[in-house]
């Protein structure tokens, strides 16, 4: 049996699944309890799990992440919400310099099993300070796992895997996907971190995408096939750390071409990392330049007419791939 649910509902379901399973899972963040979350992703959790396990916090991102870290170090499995991923910047020290490094600095004495979930990315006309795609911020920090699902089923399964993981996981929900419905099988879902998925097989080029860029890459692949006879394989990376390089390298060595589709702005995006891995380890298999499709290196504009020009569009993916294939 399967059911159509929104990505938003999947969040609630994922948190509830893990909180039911394990009493040491607690959840904290701003407006997550009584109000059910500003994106309405956490409705009903306070009612089911009570105010001890589901806690509203002050607007104190460092206090939130610190509380999660200290609790994780001492036997709990906290889930912390940072309302918008942009706000990572206000607690970046706690995420990047404390949580990520604690295990290493203490030679394994301290373990920090927690999940920081957040609404990531653009497309909602929220302007430069509420629209950033920051997956590369997290990826560049040793000690953080980084996950970004593109479907409701992946969201639940990868979230479960994140909560059960012994390491800190930055879990990025793409906010433009919240209203999107997709199929979810019945019962408990538990997926595996570090596994990419070939979501469309193809022969001529490998397109690697993440989160909201996956449906766009798929649509672009469809158009490339229909309009130009180009067969694109599309890979949903799903997890940037750990990174499933095997799936990517296997694909590229077959298709001989690579394009990455990133929502983050251009410089030092995760696409660059994947390109550099392919350019080093798959070089002799390549039959053409390595292509990156990214948001240009600009802060995002608020106006809808402008924002639509910045994030990678289906059209831009089609054109870039077609151009790469000459």
């Amino acid at each position: 049996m399967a059911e159509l649910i929104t990505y938003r509902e999947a969040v609630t379901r994922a948190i509830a699944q893990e909180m039911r399973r394990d009493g040491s899972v607690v959840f904290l963040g701003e407006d997550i309890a009584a109000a059910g979350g500003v994106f309405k992703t956490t409705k009903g959790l306070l009612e089911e799990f009570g105010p001890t396990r589901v806690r509203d916090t002050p607007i104190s991102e460092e206090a939130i992440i610190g509380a999660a870290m200290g609790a994780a170090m001492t036997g709990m499995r906290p889930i912390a919400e940072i309302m918008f991923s942009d706000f990572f910047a206000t607690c970046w020290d706690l995420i990047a310099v404390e949580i990520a490094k604690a295990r290493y600095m203490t030679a394994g004495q301290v373990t920090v099993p927690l999940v920081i979930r957040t609404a990531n990315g653009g497309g909602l006309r929220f302007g430069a300070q509420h629209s950033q795609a920051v997956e590369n911020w997290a990826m560049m920090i040793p000690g953080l796992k980084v996950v970004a699902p593109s479907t409701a089923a992946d969201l639940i399964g990868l979230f479960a895997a994140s909560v059960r993981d012994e390491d800190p996981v930055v879990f990025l929900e793409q906010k433009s996907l919240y209203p999107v419905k997709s199929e979810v099988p019945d019962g408990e879902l538990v997926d595996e971190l570090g596994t990419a998925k070939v979501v469309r097989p193809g022969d001529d080029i490998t397109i690697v995408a993440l989160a909201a860029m996956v449906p766009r890459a798929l649509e672009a692949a469809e158009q490339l096939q229909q309009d130009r006879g180009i067969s694109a394989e599309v890979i949903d990376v799903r997890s940037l750390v750990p990174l499933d390089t095997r799936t990517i390298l296997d694909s590229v060595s077959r298709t001989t071409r690579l394009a990455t589709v990133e929502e983050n702005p251009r410089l030092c995006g995760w696409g660059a990392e994947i390109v550099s891995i392919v350019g080093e380890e798959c070089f002799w298999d390549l039959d053409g330049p390595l292509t990156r499709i990214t948001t240009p290196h600009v802060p995002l504009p608020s106006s809808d007419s402008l924002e639509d020009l910045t994030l990678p569009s289906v059209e831009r993916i089609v054109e870039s791939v077609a151009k790469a294939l000459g």
Partner: protein
Amino acid sequence: MTTTEVPTDIDRDTRLALYRQVVGLRRFEERAHRLFMEGLVKGTSHLSTGMEAIAAGVAEAMRPDDLTFCTYRGHAHTLARGTPMDGVMAELLGRANGVCGGKGGSMHLTSVEHGVMGSYAIIGAHLPIANGAAWSAQLRGSGQVTVCFFGDGATNIGAFHEALNLAAVWKLPIVFVCENNLYMEYTPIGEVTAVEHPAADRAGAYGLEPIIVDGNDPDAVYLEASAAIERARAGEGPTLIEAKTYRHGGHSRADPGDYRPEEEVDAWLARDPLPMYRERLLELGIDAEELDAIEQERQDAVDAATEAAKAGPLPDPESAFTDVWADGGSSWRN
């Protein structure tokens, strides 16, 4: 709070100016809300409906070259400094004739020529930045005073603490105005704050006086702000003012605000600054016709701004790629 009596030391023109502000801000916010519900304002918007007395009272106490720093709830503060309604409304609609050419939107209204140095959407972040503007005025000897607005929720974030301390130590010419509307987004401030008055009860931590003012009374705000600005201008350092108020609507967008107890909403609606202030002006002997005329003029201005915004062109597509750098462009390479 400092006063519930009618202050007597405010002249008639100032009162009329205050009234004109409150009315104009109210009409503007009502229109912004309608345009949002009609889908013309995209993204989000945070209104100051019910809170206009603060923007009005403070702005009237400022000198034209003084500087304002707003939050994402910044329509009122931006307008109160004299920024034309057209440019603000057009910005909400994402048009080229908006004050930020459509790139800022409702949360980032800015009009440097009117002393509005920006609207910042990360809670607390603009307090340290406002300090910088005040420091600059001090260094340049310009005599400018900086006013920084923020919400009750912002008093619990680290940047608040760092900014207040530095402002006090450096005796900066700055006035911090906390608009305590009792709620963060949906959570009551009292549930997450260790003290009753989130700003005033912290003033002592920075060697400052605790000041609470009725944020629904334009006169009270005006007097308190005037005193603070005067002190700042005289080199006596910062002031932290907590203005108690209430938003009539929800936090943002289509939020109906129904997490708030009905009696609470009713009690505050009964203290709506607009009819209350009109009442006061009438009592003070000002003609109803004069007030009606002001109301009409402000309503016309909002209507005209709406038309200008709707008629405004979409931004030039190229503008998505301009103004990253001072050279006007966005190029990071040769």
